[in-house]
């Protein structure tokens, strides 16, 4: 089975470093590339799929370099993020044309099989121009699967899909991964990656911020320090009580209320209610202040 190997791969454009010294191996199963928008996930997928030359380092798919090597597409399928497809073709014509470009012995049958996998048979005779974004995404997946590749790369595959299509696509990728294929998809949505992949690679600002089992990384994410804004009937008294708690690392009073830095999300969330009750303080508002994905990623980079 084909695996993807990157050894000290960097890619820069002039002075801008898009991918910074990434070393990783992705093998059979589903791997999620997680990171905020602009982190370098698409650049990384373009590098892997041979649509970008590494500025430095080595990158191989199944042992062969992907740059300037069209033969790599015999074992690799790519689902790009851009929605552009040959809109003047029907779904069936598009997938069949792709099968012919792969010189498959029976393009009609291969197209039929692939379209059935993504459940697009009912719409296969309609022009792609009439498809919704989710349908276009699925027909692109059918085209990428038509030659039965060992490696499938998908850039933000769930964009534009409704919840039912999303679940179906997740099940499909899971099945393909279970069959021993190397499935790599990118996403900036934590829940998509959580639902789908056991292994994740977190990319932040072009660097590999975290790598490995999703559950371990999720734990790291939830046990990281958090900042909360707390508004109560007596902020000063609650502040004094909070500072004595081990889960709290800092308390600041400002015009908006109490800004509390907690070392552990879970412990603080559990303690705050009991503490206010114990001191007879009325809790009016409790707001997490740094829940953006960027702040989660920034924490992972620092740790």
């Amino acid at each position, binding site marked *: 089975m084909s695996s993807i190997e990157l050894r000290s791969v960097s890619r820069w454009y002039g002075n801008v470093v898009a991918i910074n010294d990434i070393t990783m191996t992705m093998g059979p199963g589903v791997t999620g590339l997680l990171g905020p928008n602009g982190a370098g996930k698409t650049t990384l997928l373009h590098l892997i799929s041979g649509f970008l030359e590494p500025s430095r380092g080595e990158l191989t798919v199944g042992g062969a370099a992907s740059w300037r090597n069209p033969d790599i597409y015999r074992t690799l399928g*790519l689902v790009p993020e851009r929605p552009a497809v040959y809109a003047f073709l029907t779904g069936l014509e598009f997938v069949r044309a792709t099968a*012919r470009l792969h010189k498959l012995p029976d393009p009609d049958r291969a197209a039929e099989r692939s379209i059935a996998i993504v459940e697009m048979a009912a719409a296969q005779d309609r022009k792609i121009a009439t498809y919704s974004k989710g349908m276009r995404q699925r027909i692109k997946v059918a085209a*990428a699967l038509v030659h039965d590749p060992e490696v499938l790369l998908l850039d933000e595959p769930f964009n534009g899909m409704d919840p039912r299509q999303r679940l179906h696509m997740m099940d499909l990728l899971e099945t393909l991964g279970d069959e021993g294929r190397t499935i790599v998809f990118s996403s900036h949505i934590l829940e998509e990656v959580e639902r789908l992949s056991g292994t994740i690679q977190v990319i932040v600002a072009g660097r590999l911020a975290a790598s490995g089992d999703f559950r371990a990384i999720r734990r790291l994410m939830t046990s990281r320090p958090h900042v909360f804004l707390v508004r109560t009937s007596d902020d000063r008294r609650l502040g004094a009580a909070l500072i004595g708690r081990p889960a709290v690392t800092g308390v600041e009073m400002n015009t908006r209320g109490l800004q509390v830095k907690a070392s552990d999300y879970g412990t603080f969330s559990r303690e705050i209610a009991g503490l206010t009750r114990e001191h007879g303080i009325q809790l009016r508002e409790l707001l997490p202040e740094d829940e953006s994905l960027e702040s989660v990623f920034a924490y992972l980079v620092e740790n």
Partner: protein
Amino acid sequence: MLSVPARTVASLTLRATMGRRRALVFMIPPLILVLVTALLKAANPERADWPSLILGSFGLAVVLPLTALIIGTSVLGAEIDDGSVVHLLATPVPRSTVILSKFAVATGLTVLFAAVPELLAGLIATGPSRLAAGLFLGAVVGSVIYNAVFVMISVLTTRAIAVGLLYLLVWESLLSNVVSGVRVLSVSQYSLGIANSVARDANLNAHLGVATAAIMGALVTVAALVLAIRRLSAFSLKGDAV
């Protein structure tokens, strides 16, 4: 015998090019050429000098390059612009097959929309004659060379039409009329040189001999196609902004 991928690329290209409303645009310049020729023929049935002037200066020097520019830059350039080329390139099809198939389609369409109308206009103007045959041959050869150049430009830059227009207006229309050395690198002069080898008409204003035109035309075609294949082999997609 063409390979299955070559036929598939050609068929996709043909449908993409002719399916767009742009196909109607292809028909406007040749229609004007044929209509103008018919009107001139009706107005000046006896004069002998206007056919070579109009068919050379307008047919070969304007209609042919403009048609080739629109078609040659769109057969691959349109797919590169909208990103759909990825679906074609993410297959093991040799890049030479992609370029040559698209070049063949572009040349065929240019012959249809520029060389055939040139022949038709020549026949209207002079009936079956050396001039009509020469102009048709020159236009066919010009279709080949222009399309090699314009397909190459469409791989090199996303502003292919602007660059192609600059070449036609500045290099071919302006400089090649002023600086004689420039004519050796003018596709229009290659077409005229080939046309004149059959037509033998001084009014065509051909400045190159048939040998120079043929050799330079072949060299430019091969060089442009080789460069286009090389550039397409190193085709890069832009990643996300960092």
